[in-house]
């Protein structure tokens, strides 16, 4: 059983790590290169995630806006693990977008974490040699989130990767999104502590 005195240093270390990461994040976002990486990476991840859910894609040319009659109730109706019903279809030219508010929120959260990871990683990478670590890990941390997006509908992704679906495989897919969140937060903390304030 640990004492308060033993716990305090751990809490202190975590607090310091979070503060360090916040400083690194804020610093990265004040730099032009960091800001650019954040915007591009977040947007790209969000688009990939939404396309992975098949909520975004191409179709025949047209213009349309359809909204379901009870959007509030429909928005919270689950269609899969961490996936919810869409409430609107937007068609602009060849682009089709299904709007699912909760999927958008979740995708935006993941995309923000991926963007921050890469922004901080790039700033660290462009710093002193000792700090050139982490960008690969940061990018990899976002992959489970993308896979969780394409895990719907079967899941057909197993056909692509050549694995036969089973109860076990489906269970793994259900945990991909929480895994992505943990991995992204973990890598952000890990990369954040490697950024030297002087490099910002």
């Amino acid at each position, binding site marked *: 059983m640990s004492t308060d005195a033993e716990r305090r240093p751990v809490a202190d270390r975590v607090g310091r790590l979070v503060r360090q990461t916040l400083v690194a994040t804020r610093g990265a976002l004040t730099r032009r290169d960091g800001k650019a990486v954040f915007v591009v990476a977040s947007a790209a991840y969000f688009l990939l995630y939404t396309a992975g859910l098949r909520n975004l894609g191409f179709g025949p040319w047209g213009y349309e806006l359809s909204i379901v009659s009870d959007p509030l109730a429909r928005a919270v109706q689950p269609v899969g693990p961490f996936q919810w019903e*869409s409430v609107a279809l937007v068609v602009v030219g060849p682009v089709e977008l*299904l709007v699912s508010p909760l999927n958008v929120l979740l995708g935006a959260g993941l995309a923000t974490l991926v963007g921050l990871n890469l922004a901080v990683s790039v700033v660290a990478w462009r710093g002193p040699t000792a700090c050139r670590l982490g960008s690969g890990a940061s990018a990899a941390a976002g992959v489970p989130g993308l896979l969780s997006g394409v895990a719907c509908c079967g899941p057909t992704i197993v056909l692509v990767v050549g694995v036969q679906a089973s109860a076990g495989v489906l269970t793994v897919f259900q945990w991909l999104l929480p895994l992505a969140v943990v991995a992204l937060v973990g890598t952000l903390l890990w990369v954040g502590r490697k950024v030297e304030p002087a490099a910002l």
Partner: protein
Amino acid sequence: MHTRRSFLRGVGVAGVVGVAGCLGGDEPSAEESSNEPTATSDATGTPPPTAERSLHLAQDIGTLDGEVISGGVPKDGIPAIDEPTFQAAERASLDDGEPVFGLVRGGDTRAYPQRILVHHEIVNDTVDGDPVAVTYCPLTGTAQGFERGPVEFGVSGDLVNSNLVMYDRGTDSRWPQILATAIDGPLAGETLREFRVVWTTWGKWRAVHPGTEVLTEDTGYTRRYGDDPYGQYNPPGGYYASDRTLFEPLSRDDRAHPKSVVVGTRTADGALAFDKESLLAAGVLTGAIQGRQYVAVADDTLSTGYVYANPDGRTVENRADGYSLDGEPVAADSLPLERALAFDAMWFAWAGFYPGTGYVN
């Protein structure tokens, strides 16, 4: 071509479950009841109408129930269409080659496009005044019709042998589509009343039934209906053409390509499958279930086949101007023999449910 709906349009929501009833099922054992699905809050206890005779099952119900797995979506995560709307054939914008599931019942003729049903799997419809469910499982390539009485069917989210497991909103019993027999719940062992749904293409269906109505995309849900998550049929690709299955079949049978299409029939005594491509080429094929002869006859106009019991071994021939029975001209869909309900299915799914099935090619 693709149907584009009008700009800014509200769409409807799901209907409600009705009440009334038919006969019940066998009492489930204590073991079965321990694994029963929980009745949903909207379950009325009303069963759908069931058949007098149960169909042949190659495995016992407990074994089948033990093979049920989650398909990765929750109950009703794939929402059935409960308030379908239809339009005239002239107004539909479908490619001639697109698969549709056709139904003629009394004075009503309807087509249900595969591109819509792949996103919903079940349509709770009323045709010629009769409440029916038109169902489609994309993973097994099966389109089947069931009487539903006052009860609606929904998608449980579970699969067995890759096949859609439906549930009825009256008793919450679980019905694998191909088997048409409940394997869990209060109606375990009971068999639904079925009717024929023809898998064909829009061009062929419209040519034969120009007055047909077509299911519209106003389903009450927003979907990208041109986007099939599994592949495409026109031309075949993705899952529909691959020799791989998503889930391990209950049993494997290498007599045919896993995704080749068979016209299958099952009775109380057994199962029999005719290779569809061979049937369309030959016109007439014969097989047997437990020594009782069956004859399959191709209908070129719809690219489909009909199966008849032919216990007396009467002679069915393919002639230049059609078919003949003992020398008399007959139409493919109306031979004066007892019609056996048959439907298209992917071979792996048929063989998985009915190991040792007769196979004719």
